[in-house]
Structure formats: C-alpha cells, structure tokens
C-alpha cells in the first residue's frame, strides 16, 4: 500500500446512476479522507442524496464502484451508519429502543445494547428522555435520537442526509457546533449532505460542490485557516466569509 498523508475511508470511482432516462450521476469520482467531515453541497436535483444512498448501499449504481476502507460496497454494512433527513424513528418505540435498534438487529443482548444506548443518549444530551416516545420530543430532540442511533452501532463512517434541515434555525446552529465537537472527538469519517452554503463551510474539512444535469463534482474546497478556531469565531472569520461568497458565486447561475 502506498502511504499517502491522509488515507481515504470512502472512495467513489466512476459512478453512473440513471433513473430511467434521467441521468442522475455521470462518471462521478470523489475521495473522502478518513477522520474528516466532507460535505456534498449543491442545488436541489444535483444528486447529492442519490450519491449518499449509493455509498450507504441503499441504492445500486449502474456502473462504477464505491470502496469503503478499500472494500467494494454491495449493500448496507456495519461499517456505515445513516442519519436521515426526516429522522426515521419508529413512532411505537421509546427513545432507548430506537437508539438501540441497530444493535438489536445485530442480535446484541438487551441489557448490553441498552447500556450502549444509554451512553449515547447521554452523549447527545437526551439524558432523562430514555423512555419518551418520538411524538413527545421536539424536532431537534428527535434528530438527536437519530444521531445517537447512528453513533451507537460504532460505524467508522457516518452518512448524514441533510440532518439539520427539518429543525429550527437555533437548534440547527447548536447542532452544527456539536457536530464540530463530534468530528474532533469521535474518530469517525463524516459524509454530510446539505444545501446550505454556510452550513457546509462551517462544519466541513472538505466541501465537494456538485452541479446538476448531469451531476458531477465541479470543485473541491478545503477551508484551511479557521478549522481549529473555537466555534464562536468561525462565523466572523474572513476566510469563512470569502468561501461562502465564492461558493455562492459559482452556484447562483444554477438556481432557478
């Protein structure tokens, strides 16, 4: 093996995806460095969710391949965990059962999986809500349950499909700050789909800009200067502001 500075946790190689006559992805290749957060950013209809679901193994590609830790993907696997835009919680199950569901499917004993679930419920700040049901929780809390569920299976790669788009603006900001902490503390690779330019620049080590018809990676941007600054000062950093402007300039012509 060649020893590059950053190893790739996920590599997408020449992926094509068609829905009938519609070309969703054409010859798309992209690397996702290990331990970092990569955003897929683009206007709606650019295939970013399609790409994420192909990586998750939920959708088959027409051709090309996806490698996770060098192994080709043929379906969902324990090395990846998905966080859904609409949370995808089981309304009939309590928080703890929802969080432990991934482990339940793997046949982990009840006491063991609930201990793990409790730990992650506390980690996402939902201690005391173990026995609440989804309809008793706010949107933001529901997504924390979704996040705890993805964390509790201890997958190396976390796939997040617009996870904060269904929560209110304040909760969203808090989530973004928490996500930065998560990337630093958990030794995991994050793939993050968003349509918000500010959000992508704020949370990402690497932003891949996807353009539609057909979808391709038009540009990869790596914020340098503000990544290690504290969460409060990022939004005032000149580089942050420049990048947001620059990305908007390249995307504005695609907005209908």
């Amino acid at each position, binding site marked *: 093996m060649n020893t590059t500075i950053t190893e790739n946790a996920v590599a997408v190689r020449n992926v094509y995806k068609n829905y009938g006559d519609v070309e969703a992805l054409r010859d798309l290749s992209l690397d996702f460095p290990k331990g970092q957060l990569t955003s897929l950013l683009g206007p709606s209809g650019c295939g970013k969710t399609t790409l994420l679901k192909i990586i998750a*193994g939920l959708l088959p590609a027409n051709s090309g391949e996806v490698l996770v830790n060098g192994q080709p993907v043929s379906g*969902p696997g324990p090395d990846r*965990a998905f966080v*859904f835009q609409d949370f*995808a919680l089981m309304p*009939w199950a309590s928080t703890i059962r929802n969080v432990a569901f991934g482990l339940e*499917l793997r046949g982990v004993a009840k006491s063991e999986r609930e201990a793990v679930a409790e730990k992650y419920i506390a980690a996402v700040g939902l201690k005391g809500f173990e026995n609440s*049901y*989804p309809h008793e929780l706010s949107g933001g809390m529901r997504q924390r349950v979704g996040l705890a*569920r993805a964390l509790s299976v201890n997958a190396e790669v976390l796939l997040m499909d617009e996870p904060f788009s269904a929560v209110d603006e304040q909760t969203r900001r808090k989530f973004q700050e928490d996500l930065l902490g998560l990337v630093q503390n958990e030794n995991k690779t994050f793939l993050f789909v968003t349509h918000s330019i500010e959000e992508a620049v704020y949370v990402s080590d690497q932003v891949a800009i996807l353009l539609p018809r057909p979808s391709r990676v038009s540009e990869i941007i790596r914020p340098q200067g503000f990544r290690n600054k504290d969460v409060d000062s990022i939004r005032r950093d000149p580089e942050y502001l420049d990048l947001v402007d620059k990305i908007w300039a390249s995307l504005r012509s695609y907005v209908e």
Partner: protein
Amino acid sequence: MKIFGYQLPNMSSLILWGLLWETVGQLELTFFLPPLSAIFATLLEIGGTPAFLKALRETAEAFAIGTTAAIVIGVPVGILMGKSRLIDELLLPWVNIFLSAPLTALVPVLMVLFGFGITAIVITTALFAIWIIVLNARAGVMQINPSLVEMAHSFGASRFDAFTKIYFWAALPEILGGVRIGFIRAVKGVIIGQLLISVVGFGSLFEIYASNFLMKHFWAVLLVLFSLSFLIAEFLAWLERKVEYYAASRQ
C-alpha cells in the same frame, strides 16, 4: 350531556329507550314485543341452563376459531400485498370481489365442500371477517414512511426483521381497524352459519324460539348476542385508540 345542571353518564339515553320498550310491552299491543322486564326475567331463567351455555360455548368457539384464522392468515397476506406489487396484482381483484360479494349466497357451496359440521361454520365466519382485515393491513403497509424501511435496511435488517419489526408495527393502527370491522362481520358470519349450515349454537336457539313464538326467549338471546358483539367492537376500538397516537404522528 347535561340536564338541569346534572352531568348524565354515557349512554343514559338507553334508559329512555328501555322505558319506552317497557311501556309498549306492558300495553300488550303485539305479541312480538314483550315488556323489557319480562325479557330480563326470562334471561335470568334461561341464562344458567345447560342448553343456553352449550349454545353460548358453540357460538363462542366457532367465532374464536374463525376470527383467529382470519387474523393469522389475513394480516400477513395483507402485509405481503402492501409490500409486493406482484402479489398485490394477483390477489387484489379477488379480495375486492369477496369484500363486496353477498357471502351468504356462498354458504350452500361451503356446505357441499365441508359438510354440515363445525368446519363449515368456522370457514363461513373466517370468510366474513378476512377480506377487510387483508385490505386494511395492505393499506397500513402502503402508507408506511419509506425512510423507515430504508432505516431498517441500512442497519442490516433481514427481510424477516423488516416484516416483524417495521411493517407490522407501522401498519398496526390500520390492522386493528380492520380486525374491529372484521369481527363485526364475523358475528354475522357465525350466526348465518349456525342458521343455514347446521342448526347449533345461538342459531339453534333463534330457530327454536322463533318457530315456537317464544318471543321473550328470542329477545333474551338477541340481547345477549347484541351486547357481546358490541363489547367486542368497543374493546377493539379502545385498543385502536391506544395506538392512534403514533398513527397521527407518522410523518
């Protein structure tokens, strides 16, 4: 309801109707309608007799077996129809035809096929109940949130896991609704079976009392039957309300 500031308990209007019945009965306008009090007296009189208990047991047995079969077969078939386009295309026309068909007309055929015993009665009961149970389970699965299925799939659920841990529960409010209506139809089925196929159970009591103009007895059995089916329907409606919260909260 409130009258003169007093909160009336639920269904207190029944008292009014009971009084009206009693009055009409006491006036002896028709042999067909004896006073309600006399009916209750008869009910107490025959309620403990072996003939009555045997009829109750026979009817309850046929009802229980028939409805259990309808649920055990109907729910999985409905879920499969909701999941698989192919199975749905194959079965849906038949389910719709049988749902709206006058099943009573089929009973003679069942008698030819299964004889005059309890089997034919049980099958009649199941046949009355099953179609709405199938259709409702199917409807419940079809409105399932697709990302819930994707979620189970992404966390490695097998087909069986998805079936028992996601589809069944997601469709539970609709399944219970179907079971409630199915049970109400099954009461029809079991009585029609007991009247037409072999005269046993409550069917035989109706037959004997009606043909001998024993109206007090006839009404007494009818009251028991009506109350039982009403209680079953109410119990299932209560169960349904218990899971309603998540039917409403489904995205």
